[in-house]
């Protein structure tokens, strides 16, 4: 606030010379002694203005330290604050399949020393399924950790997590001692979207679609629940043989091309795969085998112990609580799940993750929860990877 006429004149000169944005009053000629003056100062000029005011012995107070930030915050969520940018890709938004395909290509291109994109198979609607292999070059034979996302179309937070996971590994493998350590012994195989046809359908037609898009009964109904289609006690419990049902298990185990693509590949590598992870939503659960029976798997104690540690690591981040247990005991009975099948063919550590939340938003998780969900889940997954590494 200028007190004297001289100060007023100096301020008027300052404002016109530097072309400062006067907010109150609006014109330099309206500056008055004894009246408050509000100026928006562009960042590069802040120091100069402060120095001039000090020289003129005019007291001042910063009302808004960062105007741009306030503007961003008040804008609709679309592309404002919280940009997690890695080479331009925004990991805190949901992406349609087209963009995920492009992302995979870019990721391989930008990190070719570590990442390769591989063909896995074709979907029913003839789309290509790719997985990313993250592998540190070495002459040592490596064991494998497999993670797939998006087996159920509407669970959008799942593919978002797979993308986040890849980004985290690639951004930090050189600096994070943990990651660089386990990459010496382990290869990571990530399938960002397993049910591509369904995922696209959930973007274009029906946000709450779950299954694949293969037609049955002459196009009377569409889709198989891919997580009931695997060859583990197939068709026995928690399924429907009605193609209209959201848990329709298909015409037989591995009847769907997507299931076959994944199963064939995992079978071919099963001696080297130590851990199978499949990511779903919602429910905040880490689920162990089995869904089709209450009989515990042979390594149940180990499975439960590691899962509990993973859940604890997750909770440590934001306090999000997860429950741990077999699908049959804490969720409901089901057969033909990919996780059960993976365990029965010999992959010792097989888990299903159900990410946020617990029903408030369910499948339609707001994009502003992508970051915290992925950050906390990352801790759980790396806990499991660390255990496997030992």
């Amino acid at each position, binding site marked *: 606030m200028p007190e004297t006429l001289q100060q007023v004149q100096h301020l008027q000169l300052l404002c016109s010379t530097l072309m400062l944005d006067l907010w109150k009053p609006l014109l330099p000629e309206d500056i008055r002694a004894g009246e408050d003056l509000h100026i928006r100062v562009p960042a590069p000029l802040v120091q100069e203005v402060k120095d001039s005011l000090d020289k003129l012995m005019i007291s001042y107070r910063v009302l808004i330290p960062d105007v741009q930030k306030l503007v961003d915050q008040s804008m609709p969520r679309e592309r404002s604050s919280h940009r997690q940018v890695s080479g331009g890709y925004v990991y805190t938004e949901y992406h349609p399949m087209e963009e995920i395909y492009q992302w995979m290509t870019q990721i391989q291109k930008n990190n070719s020393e570590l990442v390769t994109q591989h063909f896995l198979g074709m979907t029913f609607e003839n789309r290509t399924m790719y997985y990313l292999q993250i592998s540190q070059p070495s002459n040592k034979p490596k064991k494998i950790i497999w993670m797939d996302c998006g087996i159920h179309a509407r669970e959008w937070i799942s593919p978002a997590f797979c993308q986040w996971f890849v980004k985290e590994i690639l951004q930090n493998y050189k600096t994070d001692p943990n990651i660089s350590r386990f990459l010496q012994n382990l290869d990571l195989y990530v399938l960002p979207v397993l049910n591509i046809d369904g995922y696209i359908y959930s*973007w274009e037609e029906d946000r709450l679609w779950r299954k694949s898009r293969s037609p049955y009964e002459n196009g009377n109904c569409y889709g198989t629940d891919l997580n009931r289609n695997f060859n583990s006690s197939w068709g026995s419990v928690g399924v429907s043989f009605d193609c209209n049902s959201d848990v329709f298990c298909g015409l037989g185990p591995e009847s769907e091309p997507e299931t076959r693509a994944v199963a064939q590949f995992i079978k071919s590598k099963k001696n080297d795969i130590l851990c199978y992870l499949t990511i779903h939503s919602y429910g905040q659960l880490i689920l162990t085998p089995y869904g089709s029976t209450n009989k515990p798997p042979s390594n149940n104690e180990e499975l439960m112990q590691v899962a509990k540690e993973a859940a604890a690591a997750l909770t440590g981040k934001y306090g999000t609580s997860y429950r741990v247990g077999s699908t049959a005991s804490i969720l409901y009975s089901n057969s033909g799940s990919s996780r059960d099948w993976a365990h029965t063919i010999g992959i010792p550590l097989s888990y299903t993750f159900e990410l946020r939340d617990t*029903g408030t938003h369910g499948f339609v998780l707001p*994009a502003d929860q992508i970051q915290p969900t992925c950050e906390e889940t990352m801790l759980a997954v790396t806990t499991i990877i660390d255990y496997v590494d030992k």
Partner: protein
Amino acid sequence: NIPESGHKYYLQFSTENYRTGENAGNCLATVLYPKKKSPPVVSIKCSHTKDQKEIQEEDNRVYQRIRHQSKPITGNNIPDSYGKIEPALEPVWALAVAGSSSIMWEKSTETLGYFLAQVKSVRQWIRKDDFIEFDYTVLLHEIPTQEIISCHMRLTWLPGHPLKVKHFCAAESHGVDEGSGAESGSAAGPATEKGANF
């Protein structure tokens, strides 16, 4: 397990504010599912973290936000595909949550549970009296069938009065509106509450 009688469950749980996640009180309940199919017998007692006055004030705020809109409120896909809810539609969503809970209360069984997946559409009916009235299509996620059940819900409310809900759920899931399911009901709201608490 009570042989000959059915299954009795003893529950202890905490409740939280749907919007903020703040603890809203604790409850003790028993639920008896009789052997023959009929609605369960429920006894429940809850403690509230907010007193009646606070609850009334919040209800009034929601009510005023809705009343102060200049045109009848309509909306689709709340939240949208990205989980976003338009701030102006937030109170309308809150009412949908409360109203669909009464549908879920009636539909749930010992083996079937529900969550509100999305509000497909909403339309306000302007009334001459002070009550607010909405027509909703809500999508319920059914566990463990994983089906999405579409329900039509007519909801009427005035703060200080129990929420009045009439509903009709389609028999078929997922956009196939068969309409042969014969469920309609009106619910006066949970017995222990005087008014809807958002």
